[in-house]
């Protein structure tokens, strides 16, 4: 029986390229006016009701283009792709930081995300206060947070720094604390976007062991982005391969990793041949 916790259907995300500058206030008013009267927006060249995404244009492009997949409880899914492929964008949409332009996503359970470098910590406040604040952000009650507090501090190895303002923490210490919070608080879905990169080698190993244990014992679901293939292959059974906003492949992680390398080699070849041509010219 399938126990789906994340269902993503035809999700597209459009971004603007370039700087907000002259004329945008005017353009925004134009679009606003058009939408108010249900007319066609003169500033959108994108076809929003077609099946296969749309044409980017007019300073806009699709960071995610018609992405669909489902994730079941207890799965660990690695998302791989080149820089700018749309991995972080996808995770930000799932974390409800940004909204998609198209599509539907449905989820069950609480979500704890560590998105890219930096955390939702308040720099002036101590680690202790920030643990409570993060628990509150997850919608937890005070006594629930208290129950996990000691475990969090111990795992993060922050020790006596727990009452020091976060702004005095090293970047690794921040990530340790953030990971520790994400791992210990009750969130059914954990989202990690390139977070382990800052931690030292030993802490990385510790985190991966912890995640494996959580996946096995507590039936949590993990979405994991990393450019370190060994970690992805170790942590995940399944892989999603994103390329320029398209979901190219959804398969067991080893197949996806192989395809990723294959594509990389090919693009290297073509890049090399282009270089040779331009050298010759």
């Amino acid at each position, binding site marked *: 029986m399938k126990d789906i916790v994340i269902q993503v259907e035809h999700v597209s995300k459009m971004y603007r390229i370039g700087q907000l500058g002259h004329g945008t206030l005017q353009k925004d008013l134009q679009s606003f006016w058009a939408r108010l009267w249900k007319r066609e927006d003169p500033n959108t060249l994108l076809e929003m009701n077609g099946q296969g995404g749309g044409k980017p244009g007019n300073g806009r492009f699709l960071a995610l283009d018609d992405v669909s997949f489902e994730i079941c409880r207890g799965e660990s899914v690695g998302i791989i792709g080149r820089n700018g492929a749309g991995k972080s964008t996808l995770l930000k949409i799932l974390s409800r930081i940004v909204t998609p332009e198209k599509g*539907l996503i449905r989820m*069950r359970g*609480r979500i704890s995300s560590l998105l890219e470098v*930096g955390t939702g910590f308040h720099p002036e406040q101590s680690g202790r206060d920030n643990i409570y604040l993060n628990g*509150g952000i997850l*919608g937890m009650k005070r006594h629930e947070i208290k129950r996990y507090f000691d475990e969090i501090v111990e795992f993060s190895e922050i020790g006596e720094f727990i009452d020091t303002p976060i702004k005095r923490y090293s970047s690794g210490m921040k990530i340790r604390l953030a990971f520790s919070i994400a791992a210990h608080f009750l969130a059914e879905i954990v989202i990690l976007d390139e977070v382990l990169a800052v931690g030292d080698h030993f802490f990385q190993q510790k985190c991966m062991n912890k995640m494996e244990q959580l996946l096995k014992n507590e039936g949590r679901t993990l979405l994991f982005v990393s450019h370190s293939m060994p970690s992805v292959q170790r942590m995940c059974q399944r892989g999603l391969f994103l390329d320029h906003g398209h979901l190219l492949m959804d398969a067991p992680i080893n197949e996806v990793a192989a395809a990723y390398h294959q594509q990389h080699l090919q693009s290297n070849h073509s890049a090399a041949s282009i270089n040779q041509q331009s050298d010759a010219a």
Partner: protein
Amino acid sequence: MNTTNTQKNSAIPDNHLPWDIEITPPKFLSPLKWNEFFRYKNLLGLLVYRDFVVYYKQTILGPLWWLLQPVITSGVFVIFFGFILKVPMDGGTPLMLFFLSGLTLWFYFSNSLNQIANLFASNGSMFEKVYFPRLIIPISQLLSNLMKLTLELIFLAIVYTVLCFQGAQVRPTWWLLLSPIIIFYLAVLALGFGLLFNSLTYKYKDLSLTLPFIIQIGMFTSSVIHPVSAIPKEILYYLYFNPVIPAIELFRFMLTGQGTIYPDQIVTGIVVTVVLLLLGIMSFSYTEKRFIDTI
């Protein structure tokens, strides 16, 4: 397309549990999920505590800073408007009491407005990392400002008592028991106007730079520095455009029994406030889903 998908899914038997979270493209105006607030009331408490404590974390005087803003400003105003410019006052009210009462309320309003009107600009780094109902932030700011206001009002009461012992000819009225309504009114006004301003300006920096200017002009046109009775008849109509005036004048009337109250002015003030609140919440529900893309 979406409707067929919904039907398909509800037909699958293993989807026994309801979905907790649904993410769709933002509608033009999506309704706020008020019930979500109750799940996050612990967060609200933590945020109020944070604002309250962080404000004086690295200062020597600590909580005294809250008292200094209205006290020093009142002192300066007593000298300038009382002795140098000689603004005509209602008889009997000591100048210190007059300015302190007006400024205490004014600073509650203007500080709250300043925070809420910069909601996205000053909380963007948090909003791009974690999800929670965004409206919790302005509400927590109003509450922590309310705690500061309470301290200031206690101080005001002390000053009042001292002045009475020194022979001031004013006494509070029973209407003073209704003053929480005035504070609530100012909170709603700051929320509505602040959210609207925030939504209109977060994208365009030059617009948001007008805020300090607006607040400064507001202080001089909200009967903070003069009683309503000092306004010449010819320009009395401008009272109807500034919904802060009736609040401050009414508070002073409750406090001292002196003041000029126009009932129709109170009614227009309430109407303006309600309209601003509706516009503020509507514009906020539109921009809250979109602003992260543009910061």
